[in-house]
């Protein structure tokens, strides 16, 4: 039991390191080769964890080999579009101007149910609303509506909207982030003033954000310990 415990910790750290080295893409959208590596690594780590009669290196060596091959392959696919197409495939157009490409659907073994499900998920009820639907190499379907079904944007209506940008977190669960204050061009005096307006101290704040336009959102801590959405204040 003790050996399994130690082995589990070693393999856990190895797999964490492997996934970390492979990069963030591995955690999100998986390309075919990345999916293969993810499945194999989990399998390779599990066997020596349980079987103490198997040397630990016979689990670690294949994991490191897969990791290295994956990184080298990624580097090669970055430099060669031919290899990239070979390994990851290329995007396929399934709908063009509201017409389904049945041949392409058969080739990809994409059923009509799958297609309709994807359309519904994306908020389209009919194929006729879609200008282009592309099956991406990671298996996701990118859907672009026809001009008449595109959502109205401020640009279409010639409206000028003040862009606040990405809000910066100034206080997170009572902790002031001085770096965020600095990057937003604010200081502790400004923070003190904003909190005083609400009658709060930094410790009383669950979340405080400020965007480029100066819009401040303050969510006080709930008295019971959890943050209360009802306590939201905008300034």
């Amino acid at each position, binding site marked *: 039991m003790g050996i399994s415990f130690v082995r589990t910790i070693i393999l856990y750290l190895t797999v964490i390191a492997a996934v970390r*080295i492979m*990069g963030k893409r591995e955690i999100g959208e998986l390309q075919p080769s990345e999916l293969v590596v993810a499945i194999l690594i989990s399998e390779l780590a599990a066997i020596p964890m349980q079987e*103490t*009669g*198997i*040397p*630990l*290196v*016979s689990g670690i*060596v294949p994991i*490191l*080999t897969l*990791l*290295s*091959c*994956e*990184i*080298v392959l990624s*580097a090669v696919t970055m430099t060669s579009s031919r290899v990239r197409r070979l390994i990851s495939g290329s995007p396929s157009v399934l709908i063009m101007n509201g017409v389904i490409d049945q041949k392409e659907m058969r080739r990809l073994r994409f059923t009509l149910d799958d297609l309709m499900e994807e359309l519904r998920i994306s908020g389209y009820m009919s194929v006729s609303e879609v200008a282009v639907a592309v099956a991406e190499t990671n298996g996701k379907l990118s859907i672009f509506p026809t001009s008449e079904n595109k959502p109205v944007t401020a640009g279409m209506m010639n409206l000028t909207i003040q862009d606040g940008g990405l809000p910066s977190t100034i206080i997170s669960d009572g902790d002031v982030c001085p770096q965020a204050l600095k990057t937003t061009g604010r200081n502790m005096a400004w923070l003190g003033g904003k909190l005083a307006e609400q009658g709060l101290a930094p410790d009383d704040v669950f979340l405080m954000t400020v965007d480029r336009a100066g819009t401040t959102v303050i969510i006080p801590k709930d008295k019971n310990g959890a943050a209360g959405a009802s306590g939201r204040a905008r300034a």
Partner: protein
Amino acid sequence: MNKLRIAIILLLIIPALIAGTHLYLRAATDEMCSELTSAQKYALADDKKEAARQVAAFTKSWQNSSQIMATFIRHSELDPVNISAARLKPLLSEEENGDFLAESAATVAQLRHIWESDRFTPDNIF
């Protein structure tokens, strides 16, 4: 690029390690097989003292090697040799010459199997 460098280094280190273990395995099993073969010859020539000396040398070699081998060879491959190694000395001292020869031959076969199972042969790969 750093990750790529790490990957290339790993892809160089891993085959080097494999080659190292492979060479070690060959040298160690060859040495132990030769000790056992000598012990068999002395036992056949009724030189029990020299046979016992060779068995003791084999036991010592096995004790040293098995600990290293356990880090890269399946333990189930090593267990039969452990059992055989423990039986050799008593068989020799109890004057069970036939049993000793059979057991030492089996041990040699097991040792050769350890080496054979690690070789890059089509049998092992496929």
